[in-house]
């Protein structure tokens, strides 16, 4: 086994990625798959804005519009934002804590393939009789009445990809608890690792309610149960609760890693230690904790009663406090630092006012009495796009520029990066700022058109125009990626020159075993400490020895493929077609067969021998 990647044919590279259990390659898989779904979701968004650009438009029909908005929301949240976050967690977190991989590399691969097949399944609905059309929240009264298989695609697709996410979360938790390098105490972990930790805990607790909700919905739609049907003694509100018990923590699952990425950026490019590190950790944990007690703020208008509304309103507003702590810490990190305006720093800088705007509208929405006015209008749409795009998507774009060199060994072009930033930033505010007013003027969300003379024309035209800007920004970024990959100029360990944490102490991209010798961590910003003492790299915490590595395996792919096949069987079983049941059984046999193989076949991995590692040294550290 050689350490250096030889020039490989396309087939060999493909096979390598299909069977990999290496966290860095899985990160690339997440980045590619999440990126593709991001483009699909973005295209859907463009269709929405074209339809709404002028009154009485018939670019798409009402039914198709419902499918597009449902798929836009579902794709963006579950298949774009989460996987992209997982990409960075996989790529960076093990390096930041000085580990050679995640705790369960095999399970990591299973997680990815489950997400991937779930996402493909969901999107195949477009070609197989129509996409889900009950909104990304899939409220039961709508979802159960929905004709065709659209909602079934939603249920089964999310169920499959949800398993993957849950496993991923558990994997990250175990990794952070057990695999930190010597000296890496909890309170020395970089903030991105901390936010990965809290996010994973949120995943652990938030996904089971979704799973339960989806199972109940599956029984209602496919097997004749009536959990959510009031006429049959069920209760449609139960779905809403289950969905939001998952759904609100979900928005924090998205935003906390974004906070983590921005914390890294602020301290790197202010060339200062993060201000108030321990209060940042505290705020992250507190946000995660409070995130579970506020879900009913999405249901103020369902008639929970004044007491419940008041309790949930107060709890919701309380989240503003730790969030505020974070905002001030970021500002104080920049204060007095020698700030360098790189592309990631542009995003971080823009993030602060944008996210504060989203947080303020959040607190407005949290006032239950006022929410009767705002609910289900474009005001809510503006709110969550300010937090999700202005927070999460900005962080993902910033993270792409920041970690691209670490993941691929090449540096994205800064000028193009800044063009992307400015077009995206201007486009974003143009699209969504005006939607606050549309909402206050009374335009309801999720309508496929509006009439002339209602006063909505200009604002909608502006909004659609902004969407075009955002699209240009994304296209420029794609060009940037292509140009950079073609030029293929390799960079060294610390291409930004301001790296503080362990990932910048090793080559870009790191060798497949990450650390030849586990590093000794002597404090927060471990690599920075060594640099400040004039050292070149980290002090090793162990003598050079054999390294134990896991073998690649094709089983994760097969396991997930089995569930994908079984899902088709389960879905068409409702139509009483004869092949449905055999297909379902076949799919499950494939999955359980693969699991069985994995259980009985011993796979002890392999060792990289000391001599090989020393050879690497002789050749000199390339790149």
């Amino acid at each position, binding site marked *: 086994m050689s350490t250096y990647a030889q020039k490989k044919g396309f087939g060999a590279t493909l096979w390598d990625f299909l069977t990999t259990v290496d966290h860095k390659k899985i990160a690339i898989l997440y980045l590619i798959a999440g990126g593709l779904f991001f483009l699909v979701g973005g295209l859907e968004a463009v269709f929405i804005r074209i339809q709404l650009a002028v009154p009485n438009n018939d670019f798409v029909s009402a039914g198709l519009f419902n499918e597009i908005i449902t798929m836009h929301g579902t794709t963006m949240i579950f298949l774009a934002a989460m996987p992209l976050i997982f990409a960075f967690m996989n790529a960076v977190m093990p390096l930041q804590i000085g580990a050679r991989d995640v705790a369960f590399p095999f399970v990591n691969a299973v997680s990815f393939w489950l997400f991937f097949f779930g996402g493909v399944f969901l999107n195949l609905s477009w070609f197989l009789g129509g996409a889900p059309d009950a909104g990304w929240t899939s409220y039961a009264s709508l979802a159960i009445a929905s004709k065709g298989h659209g909602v079934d695609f939603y249920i089964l697709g999310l169920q499959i990809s949800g398993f993957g996410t849950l496993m991923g979360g558990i994997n990250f938790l175990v990794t952070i608890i057990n695999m930190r390098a010597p000296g890496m105490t909890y309170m020395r972990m970089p903030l991105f690792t901390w936010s990965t930790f809290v996010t994973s805990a949120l995943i652990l607790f938030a996904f089971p309610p979704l799973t339960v909700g989806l199972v109940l919905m599956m029984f209602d739609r496919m097997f004749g149960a009536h959990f959510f049907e009031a006429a049959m003694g069920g209760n449609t*509100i139960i779905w809403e609760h289950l969905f939001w018990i998952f759904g609100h923590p979900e928005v924090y699952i998205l935003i906390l890693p974004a906070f983590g990425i921005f914390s890294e950026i602020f301290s790197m490019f202010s060339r200062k230690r993060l201000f108030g590190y321990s209060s940042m950790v505290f705020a992250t944990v507190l946000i995660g904790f409070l995130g579970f007690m506020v879900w009913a703020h999405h249901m103020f208008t369902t008639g929970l009663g004044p007491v419940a509304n008041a309790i949930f309103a107060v709890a919701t507003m309380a989240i503003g406090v730790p969030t505020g702590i974070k905002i001030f810490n970021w500002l104080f990190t920049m204060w007095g630092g020698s700030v360098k305006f790189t592309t990631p720093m542009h995003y971080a800088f823009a993030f602060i006012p944008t996210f504060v705007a989203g947080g303020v509208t959040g607190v407005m929405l949290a006032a239950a009495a006022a929410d009767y006015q705002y609910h289900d209008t474009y005001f809510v749409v503006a709110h969550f796009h300010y937090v999700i795009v202005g927070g999460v998507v900005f962080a993902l774009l910033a993270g792409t520029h920041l970690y691209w060199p670490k993941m691929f060994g090449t540096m994205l072009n800064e000028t193009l990066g800044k063009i992307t930033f400015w077009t995206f930033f201007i486009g974003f505010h143009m699209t969504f700022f005006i939607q606050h007013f549309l909402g206050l003027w009374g335009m309801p969300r999720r309508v496929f058109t509006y009439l002339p003379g209602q006063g909505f024309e200009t604002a909608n035209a502006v909004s659609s125009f902004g969407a075009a800007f955002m699209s240009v920004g994304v296209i420029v970024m794609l060009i940037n990626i292509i140009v950079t990959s073609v030029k293929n100029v390799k960079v060294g360990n610390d291409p930004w020159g301001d790296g503080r944490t362990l990932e910048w102490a090793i080559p870009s991209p790191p060798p497949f075993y990450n650390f030849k010798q586990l590093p000794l961590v002597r404090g927060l910003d471990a690599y920075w400490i060594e640099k400040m003492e004039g050292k070149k790299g980290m002090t090793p915490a162990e003598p050079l020895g054999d390294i134990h590595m896991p073998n690649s395996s094709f089983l994760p792919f097969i396991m997930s493929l089995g569930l994908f096949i079984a899902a088709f069987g389960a879905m068409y079983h409702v139509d009483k077609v004869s092949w449905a049941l055999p297909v379902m059984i076949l799919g499950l046999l494939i999955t359980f067969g693969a699991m069985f193989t994995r259980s009985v076949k011993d796979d002890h991995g392999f060792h990289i021998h000391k001599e090989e590692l020393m050879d690497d040294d002789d050749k000199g550290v390339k790149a």
Partner: protein
Amino acid sequence: MANPQLNSGNPRVDIEYRRRKNAEEMRYQVVSFALMIFLTLIAFAAVAIKGFTSWFTVPFIILLAVVQVIFQLYYFMHMSHKGHEAPSLFLYSGVLVGAIAILAFSTIIWW
């Protein structure tokens, strides 16, 4: 999970130490086992004895069950040992999240 604090590097001391530790462990387990049997008997008695309303017996039995779960976790599944901080943290967080959901469901949906 291994108990790293049990190893001093000196095998004789280790064995002595382990033996004492195990005996102590055993005593705890026997005591808590007896207590659990006792609690179970009380639970049966609470149902068998006439005169208690179900408004008393049901919460009472649930309380006894909770106590037993705690015994189980701490004395039989070794949660009291060092090195179990993370599992207990997650266990309690999970219980809290679940409890809040159940509380909300039972107050604002069902009754």
